[in-house]
């Protein structure tokens, strides 16, 4: 049995598999299929300071080996979350990551402050949501604004901050460096790629929001590339995601430089993917004679 534990910004994960934000709500649903304790961590649904209803339906469209979503950060707001969901989560022995979003700099800071006294283990700063009109990805596409969010939040929280990066940029490395310089403790990537589908029968976009975020296996090669580029240019840990659906994908992402991985869209067609990935990695490490998962992180040998 190899060691599966990883440490990210001072937080210990029992294994490197985390369910991705927005794909597993606040944990209650998939807990009905297997105990959340099995997971390295859970990244919770994107949270805003006040309740948000999100975008009108349809909010989902299928694409070749992928899907688009345009949920638009529907969530009960941080207070309701702490009251209704945190008690359930606190009892689960897994790393709790709050995914934090805002329309303004003040929003981000206010949530960080409100969560500082909670049992949340880590913040994931979402400056990459493509589905909201204000804020979201607007903060994540320039180095200055991305850095700005982080340095401001830093004053309001003692929790480790992981910044979630958008793939919809010309140069993701410079954004990663900017948030590192501004005090980020880790980065996670990728959020969704902006995409669109049209129903040719009605001539309307399938999503009511017209465009939405692409995720699932289709984006995997883009995610691996970005993780590799970023991991080789920053010194803080990188958490990789985008299209992971089997243990081989997780290993590939880790070789590219990810210290842990997140799994999103794959949950929808197979809720057991995270467990299968953990098990698959475990067996593979044994078979390879690798004693500690950390030994494979970033080991890809470029030509």
């Amino acid at each position: 049995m190899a060691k599966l534990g990883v440490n990210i910004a001072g937080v210990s994960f029992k294994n490197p598999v985390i369910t991705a934000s927005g794909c597993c709500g606040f944990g209650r649903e998939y807990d009905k299929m297997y105990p959340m304790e099995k997971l390295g961590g859970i990244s919770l649904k994107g949270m805003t300071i006040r309740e948000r209803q999100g975008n009108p339906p349809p909010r989902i469209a299928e694409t070749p080996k992928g899907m688009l979503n345009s949920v638009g950060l529907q969530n009960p707001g941080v207070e309701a979350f702490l009251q209704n969901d945190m008690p359930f989560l606190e009892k689960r022995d897994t790393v709790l990551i709050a995914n934090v979003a805002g329309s303004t700099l003040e929003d981000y800071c206010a949530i960080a402050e409100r969560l500082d006294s909670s049992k949340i283990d880590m913040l994931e700063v979402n400056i990459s949501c493509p589905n909201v009109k204000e804020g979201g990805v607007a903060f994540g596409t320039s180095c200055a604004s991305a850095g700005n969010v982080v340095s401001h939040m830093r004053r309001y929280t003692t929790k480790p901050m992981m910044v979630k990066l958008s793939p919809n940029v010309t140069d993701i490395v410079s954004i990663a460096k900017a948030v590192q310089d501004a005090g980020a403790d880790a980065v996670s990537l990728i959020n969704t790629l902006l995409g669109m589908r049209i129903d040719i029968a009605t001539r309307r976009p399938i999503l009511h929001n017209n465009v939405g975020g692409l995720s699932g296996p289709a984006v995997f090669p883009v995610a691996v590339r970005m993780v590799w580029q970023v991991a080789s240019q920053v010194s803080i840990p990188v958490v990789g995601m985008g299209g992971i659906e089997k243990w081989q994908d997780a290993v590939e992402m880790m070789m590219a430089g990810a210290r842990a991985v997140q799994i999103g869209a794959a949950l929808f067609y197979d809720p057991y993917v995270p467990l299968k990935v953990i098990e698959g990695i475990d067996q593979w490490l044994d078979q390879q004679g690798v004693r500690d998962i950390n030994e494979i992180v970033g080991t890809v040998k470029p030509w």
Partner: protein
Amino acid sequence: MSYIQSLFPITAKKELAPGIFDYTVYCPPIASQAAAGQFVHIRADGFTLRRPISLCQIDRQRQTIRLVFEVRGGGTQEMSHLSVGDSMDILGPLGNGFPLLSPENKVIVVGGGIGVPPMVETAAHYGKNATAIIGFRNSQAVILKSDFESLGCDTRLATDDGSAGYHGFVSGLLKERLEQGPADLICACGPMPMLKSVVSIAQQANVPTKVSLEERMGCGVGACLVCACRTVRDGKEIFTHVCKDGPVFDGDEVVF
């Protein structure tokens, strides 16, 4: 309650009408837990998203479930290629079904088109105390009529073009039925315009309604929040979720 996800063998298959398939699947853990109006989420080979299909009947004795669906696009097409002996990848049972009053209540079930199958299990609960009002485009599209009849339901058929039964919509038959006598509950499934008129007729007659809605889905279990539907709760318009808060809603709370 817990969700099951696994492969289950198909034990029977029929084509009820052109493009409408009727599958029986041996599925003990779902058959034992499931309730009328719940649905399952089916994986179609080669597709990223599962397809939600309502339970048409639940046979606890035989430990089977019955699924009736229409081929609409690629996913249901792929599903229709499965044969007896093949396995179906099923996640379920999901959602909240129709409330089941005690069987002596007078209940009207209303189904339109491919919204008819989900009403069978509910009708079965009330047997001869149920009125089943079912509507289709035309006589060729009629399915499951004999199923309601053999359950003892007062079965009334409408077709849009009058090629079988009543010439017109189910709303006409519903009005007729409500004029003939009282009802304790109306349960309905079908296209939104049909549900809207059912609810408005029922409201006038002061009969409570339960309607089963559709929306495009991701997870099917309430985790991804994509299947939003506009509802009024506590006087406030909010997006609830078809897979978790529904698919069955109070007719009064749906914003049509």
